[in-house]
């Protein structure tokens, strides 16, 4: 196993805070996916993880590895661009498909 590089205290505190904020936000989004009632309410919940959660975790990783200087931070930038650009497209197509299926099966009522 490769050992992680040492960084200063300020950088490690900031990295830990951003990492915990990102993970907790993603967990809140996943809990909303379980607990909300209809599909159109549930479609909003995981976007919390894909926007704020991914941004916080990628920012923590960028901060840690730019302070350590062991590898380039290109991957995190690319991941952020991909996730931010693709989540709205996915949700637009998915909700449009769900509306079409609802209207085809049981009229325009949105529940379950």
């Amino acid at each position: 196993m490769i050992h992680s590089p040492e960084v200063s205290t300020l950088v490690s505190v900031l990295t830990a805070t951003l990492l915990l904020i990102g993970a907790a936000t993603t967990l809140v989004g996943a809990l909303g996916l379980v607990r909300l009632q209809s599909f159109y309410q549930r479609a909003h919940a995981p976007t919390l993880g894909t926007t704020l959660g991914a941004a916080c975790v990628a920012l923590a990783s960028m901060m840690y590895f730019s302070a350590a200087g062991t590898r380039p931070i290109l991957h995190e930038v690319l991941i952020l661009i991909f996730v931010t650009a693709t989540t709205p497209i996915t949700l637009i197509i998915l909700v449009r498909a769900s509306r079409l299926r609802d209207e085809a099966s049981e009229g325009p009522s949105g529940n379950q």
Partner: protein
Amino acid sequence: MSMLLASSVIVAKILLGIAMACSTYRLVCGPRAQDRVLAFDSLYVNAMLLLLTFGIGSGSTLYFEAAMIIALLGFVSTVALAKFLLRGEVIE
């Protein structure tokens, strides 16, 4: 790696694991097909964040490349599934 950072990496791994379990619950028990597709989308984003956390914990570049591939291919698969729900076929 300092004690604070190591313990916060462990806590973040646990939180993201619980988030993946919630998404898996919705994937298995989701009442309709669009719920399952949405839960699958949430599941791969959570797995990608978990891989990023593993990468911070171990310092290896391999995890970040895997996370980038998941971010790319997950988008393609979710769009293909949503297109299938929309039109009944993926490529027309």
